[in-house]
Structure formats: C-alpha cells, structure tokens
C-alpha cells in the first residue's frame, strides 16, 4: 500500500465569505459551518471561533482535535466507516491542510476534557498551540444524555474537518511525502538483511469518553489485528475518548502518529518496518489477557524482531502495557514501551500502576501530576467553569483573576504516549 501525503501549508486563519485557501491563509465561512453542525438536531447551538498561535486565548473544555484532510485519489474517503463509506483507505493520494485544526469544545461531557492555551507557559505543553484552530463551541439540547452528547460532538468535529478538508482537493501541495508498506512477504524480501520491526498501537477502550473507533467499529469489540500504517493517516482510527486530556490520543494524534512517522523515517536503513498491530485496553481481565495473547502471537507470526508498544491513558491500561511487553518479550522479540507517569505532585510516588522487569526500555512522556500555573487569558473559547472538576483540576484550581493552577494532566496532549512531544521525566 502506497500513500502520497500532499501538505498544503496553512499559516493563518480568518473568517471569509467562502471557505478556501489563498496564499497559505485559510478562510472559513462561518455560516456554512454553523449550518452543517446544526443539521444534527441534538445540537442546540454552536459558535465558531478562531484561535491562532500567540493569541491570549484559552480553549476549554476541549474534546477532540482533528486535522482537515481529503482523499484526492485512491480508495475511499476520510474517516471511513464513520462519515464516509467503509472502504479500505491508505493508498493513493491525500491532501492535508498542514497547520490547521478543528477543535471541538463546549460544556463538559465527563471529567476528562482539557485545556489548550495559545500562549504563555501552558502553550509549551500542548502541540495544538502551534496550529490555526477553528473551534466549535457546541451547545447540546436540554436533557441530552452523556453518550448522545459525546457522539454529537464527535460527529460535528469530523464533519467540519471533512468539509474544511475538501478545499484542499484541487490545490497544489507545498510538499509531498510518500509512504509505502508492501504486503508482508514482499516487504520482508525488500530488506532481507535488516531486522523486522512492528508497532503495537494500544487504543483506549474503557467506555464512555474512553473509546476509540476503527473503521467505525468501537475498538473494545475488536480482537487485535494488523493494519498498514498508511490506513491510519487517512482517518481509519478516530478518537471518541477524552481519557485524561494529557494522554488521550486525539484524532489529530492518530492522523499524525509520530511513531509511525519515525519508523518510516528509518525504514530501509536501520530496520524493515513491516506493519502495525492495533489492540485495545478493555475493562475485563479476560479481554486484557486475550488481547495481549493476540499481540504476542501476531508479532511472532509476522516475524518481528522488535516492536514499539505505545499506551493510551493510565491506571489499569498500565497492565495492558505490561502484559503486551511481557508476552512479546517472552516470544524473544525486543520491545520499547512508550508511556507517561503519575508520580504525584511532588514526583515521589510510584509512576505506573504495574511493573515488570522485562520492561527495561521505557520512554516516558512526563509526569502528568506536575502542577503548573496558567496565567489569565484575554479570551476564553468555551468556558472555564469546569476547571475545578476536570481530571488534573482540584477545588480552587480556577482563581478569581482567571489564572489556573492545575496538574498538566488537564492540558490537552501534554504527556502524549505516542511520543508526540519533547516532554519527559528524569529522576533527580
């Protein structure tokens, strides 16, 4: 499977009479987007707001972040099985509005939504402070159940991303990257002298606000399976979860999975990157055992010599991570695991809920409990009324002057476990 990604660089965003790109400027027709979102009768109102890097703006409570993409050629369309037909994607050509994102926010669904600051110290912790963000502040109808509200918000984000992405279809990209993974036998033959490497992609599947969808299927219902890495770039995996804001994988993270990116970067040089296994993190012990048995079996079946395992979330998924690691190591396959830590505000506590000596190569995305003070911002997109309640917040987090004292857990993407960021932790 071969995919060309054409990046159209976006350096600014503005409202305009037509949604289009002109000279690296993304114009957004507010009315059209509003109308599109309001087609869903579960949504009472929506306000469209823009947030640019450097603005004195805080977006919260953030549910999802999505990159606008469009299929130019090849099978299927973006977000297959969710807002387009369930075709297999990942080949042909896809255009990306690089530097732009759709952010869904508005009244809280659970506890797990986050904060994006576009400037100040908080901006260093979220990759989304670098993007031209089109924010949808969603207001559900009265009495809408949590599940329904989450679904409505999720769909609104995907539909708007699809709509905005369409404008990239006929544009000439600023740069084109090519990614190719062949069928397994051919791929192995391509670099017979190099070690074969796979990627174990753990998806959060713990229930409401902790779900992930693969081609439209709730991933808690899958048993681990193999995917071409390029499928994921076309939106085959989307986020329906808000875990804790810091270590949830937003749809944007899935579309731009950095482990896949850097495995491709050294593919054919240091190793032979031969495939991705997706797996889940369920709430039943039997599911955890079954899924980790499967990842180990598939890793062995595909002849991997080494794998990277990435986690999503924390707590009981630490066990899924350790089970995957232990069982794959037991099959004589070398592992590196990517996680984050909950070492307490003072950094003195146990970082993970589970542990094993086989997990001897760990990359960490940081201690999510570390406390940060975020200064007041001139503009709030959404509402800061829930700051004390979100995961990472506490009674008194929101101060009277609008500044916020929270754990970085509350910042969207801060301790991402796909290794998206530079943040990490050391023992001092």
């Amino acid at each position, binding site marked *: 499977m071969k995919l060309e990604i054409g990046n159209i660089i976006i350096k600014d965003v503005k409202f305009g009479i037509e949604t289009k790109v002109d000279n690296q400027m993304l114009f957004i027709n507010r009315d059209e987007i509003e109308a599109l979102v309001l087609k869903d009768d579960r949504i009472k109102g929506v306000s469209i707001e823009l947030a640019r890097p450097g603005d004195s703006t805080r977006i919260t409570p953030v549910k999802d972040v999505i990159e606008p993409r469009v299929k130019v050629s090849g099978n299927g369309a973006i977000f297959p099985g969710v807002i387009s037909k369930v075709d297999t994607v990942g080949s042909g050509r896809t255009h990306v509005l690089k530097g732009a994102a759709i952010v869904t926010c508005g009244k809280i669904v659970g*506890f*797990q939504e986050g904060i994006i600051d576009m400037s100040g110290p908080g901006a*260093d912790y979220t990759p989304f402070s670098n993007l031209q963000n089109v924010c949808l502040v969603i207001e559900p109808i009265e009495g809408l159940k*949590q599940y329904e509200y989450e679904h409505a918000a999720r769909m609104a984000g995907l539909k708007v991303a699809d709509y905005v992405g369409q404008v990239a279809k006929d544009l000439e990209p600023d740069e084109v990257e090519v990614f190719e993974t062949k069928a397994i036998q051919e791929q192995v033959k391509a670099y017979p002298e190099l*070690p074969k490497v796979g990627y174990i992609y753990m998806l959060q599947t*713990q*229930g*409401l606000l902790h779900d992930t969808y693969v081609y439209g299927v709730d991933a808690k219902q899958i048993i681990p399976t193999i995917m071409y890495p390029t499928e994921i770039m076309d939106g085959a995996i989307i986020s329906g979860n808000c875990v*804790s804001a810091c270590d949830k994988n937003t749809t944007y993270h899935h579309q731009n999975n950095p*482990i896949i*990116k*850097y*495995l491709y970067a050294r593919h054919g040089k*240091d190793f032979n990157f031969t495939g991705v296994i997706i797996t889940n993190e369920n*709430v039943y012990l039997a599911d955890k055992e079954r899924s980790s048995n499967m990842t180990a079996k598939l890793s062995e079946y595909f002849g991997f010599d*080494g794998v*990277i395992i*990435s986690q999503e979330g924390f*707590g009981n998924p630490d066990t899924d991570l350790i089970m995957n690691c232990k069982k794959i190591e037991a099959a004589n396959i*070398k592992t590196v695991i*990517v996680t984050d*830590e*909950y*070492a*307490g*505000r003072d*950094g*003195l*506590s*146990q*970082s993970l809920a589970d*542990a*094993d*000596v086989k997990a001897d*190569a*760990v*990359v*960490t995305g*940081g201690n*999510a*409990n*570390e406390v940060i003070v975020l200064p007041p911002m001139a503009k709030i997109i959404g509402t800061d009324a829930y700051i004390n309640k*979100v*995961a*990472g917040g506490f*009674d008194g987090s929101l101060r009277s002057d609008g500044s916020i004292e929270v*754990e*970085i*857990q509350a910042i969207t993407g801060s301790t*991402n476990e*796909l*290794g*998206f960021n*530079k*943040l*990490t*932790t*050391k*023992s*001092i």
Partner: protein
Amino acid sequence: MAYKVIHYINQFFANIGGEEMAHVTPEIREGAVGPGLGINKAFKGEAEIVCTVICGDSYFNENTEAATKEILELIKPYEADAFIAGPAFNAGRYGTACGTIAKAVQETMHIPAVTGMYIENPGVDMFKKELYIVETSNAAVGMRKALPKMSALTLKLMSNEADLDPTIDGYIPRGIRKNYFAELTGAERAVDMLVKKLNDESYTTEYPMPVFDRIEPGKAIKDLSKAKIALVTSGGIVPKDNPDRIESSSASKYGTYNIESVLNLTGDNYETAHGGYDPVYANDEPDRVVPLDVLRDLEKEGVIGSIHPYFYSTVGNGTAVKSSKEFSLEIAEKLRQDGVDAVILTST
C-alpha cells in the same frame, strides 16, 4: 556579600576524640573546624562557614529529639543561608545524625541542606528522598573529593539554580520524578532506543521499573459471625453531589460516610466521583462498587457480626501512591480504634 553557611560535624572530625568521646553534647564554635576548612576553600569566597556545630554520635543517636532541638537553638542566631552536615562516609550513626539534623534544619529554617555519605550508609535509605546526599567513598580518604562536590552543590542550591541533576551534581538520586523538555520527541527517542536494543548496544531506560515492597498478610478471622467488617473503596462512591469534593483524578483526600441507617446505596443518594471509568453503571447502582446491600443481608442472617458504621471512599484514579498510603494509614488507625476485625476493599 558571601553566603553564610553552618557546618555540622561529629566529635571525631572535631578532633575531640573517638568512640570514648562520642557522648559529648552539642557545642558551637565560630568559623570552620576540620573538614570545614576544606569546604571554605572550595567556596572560593562565594560562601563562608560562619560556625561549626559539634555533637557526639552517641549523644545524638541516644537523644535524637533533644539533641536536634538543642542544635537548632544554637544555630538559630547565625541566620545562615545553608547547612552542611558531614560528610559521614560509611559511619552509620554519624550518617543518621547528619541526615536527621539536616532534615530538621531544612524543615524548620527553610534553608537548603546538604550532606555526604557512602551509598551503603544506612542514612542514605533513610534520607535520600528528602535530602541532597553527595555520594562519597566509604572512608575519610575520600574527603578531598567529597568536599568540592558538597560545596558546589550547596552554592547551586543557595543561588536557586533549578536544574539539578544527580549525574552532574554528584548526589544520590532522590527518586523525585521531574519533568523537562528533551531535545528529541518521545517517538524519536523510542525509535532510537529500539535500534540500540536491536543492535545490542547500551541504552538508558527513562523509567527504571520499581521494586514493590511486600507486607505480611493479616491473620484470618476466626469467627465470622462475631466479626465487625468495614467497607473501603477506591472507586469514588460518595453521597450525591460529592460533599467533600473529592477530585475526579489525583485525589488529595478521602471521605468518611455514615451508613448506620443505610440498607443499600442507591443512585438517588450516592454517585461516583471517579473520573477514570464510565460512571453510568456505578451511578445507576452504587452497590455495584460498594456492596452494602449484600453485606446488610449477611449481617441480618448472622453470617457476619456487624458492619462498621462508616465507609471510607477515595478516587484511585491517577492518585499518587504516597497519598493513598497516607489515607489508608489514617483509615487503618480509625478502624483499629473502633475494633474493626476485617476490611473489604473494592477497586474499580
């Protein structure tokens, strides 16, 4: 102006005598004594030892509380900027004394404290989490190497230089996990690490796996029909509207709730504050997390003696192990006082 530093040493390094003089009580001398001269030299004028406290090792260890108090009184007037104790090398009682007094100074005077010990000195395990302990050799021959390290670290702490690193500053890692921005992203670091592991090259894990301690199992209950059983949960079940405002994640407290006249926990009166799982099932029927309904029936049937009139609840989601240990010790103390025989603890 140079920083003012206070130095603590034992009777041996003050040239008073060995074991036979270990009983001497705290005394204070102006300026540097013994190893302090080397520290002063290493300060190169940036700081100066204003006084030296001397105490016998036996006296300190046999009268820890009193000795600590006396020493704190003695040094108070000097209004120092930092405190140095030792180095104690592998001397166990000297190490304990250095650790105890340095910690007390740090906590009561709010100034940085530094000590030095050999890695196997029992004082290391006792104090490494709270103190900067420079790693030394096991005997006083390592003095010349230890003093410059201790001086440099003290200067760094006084000038509030934030970026301390045990591998650079020579102290024993305190086990504090501290965030920083690396040069490469996590994904790049992971791919690098995998390549090294595949090639059998050395690499450094960013999180060495911890070793968990074990505790003795409590004795089994002999007669269940007389036993008083308490319910505890980390599943965050609380009275409706969460009166104690227990956090949905990283809980800083636990709740104590009277259930004397409660037959079962219903969704009308109770809910979960836990932010780590789908709350719908627990909110519908909190007995699914804290099985009070079943336990009440067993009480009525005489299977168990009684149910403790309170249940204790916190949120296990992302909550520091240290906090939950504190909660559980407090809870345990109350349970013990109230004569509880056994605990059913439920987790989500």
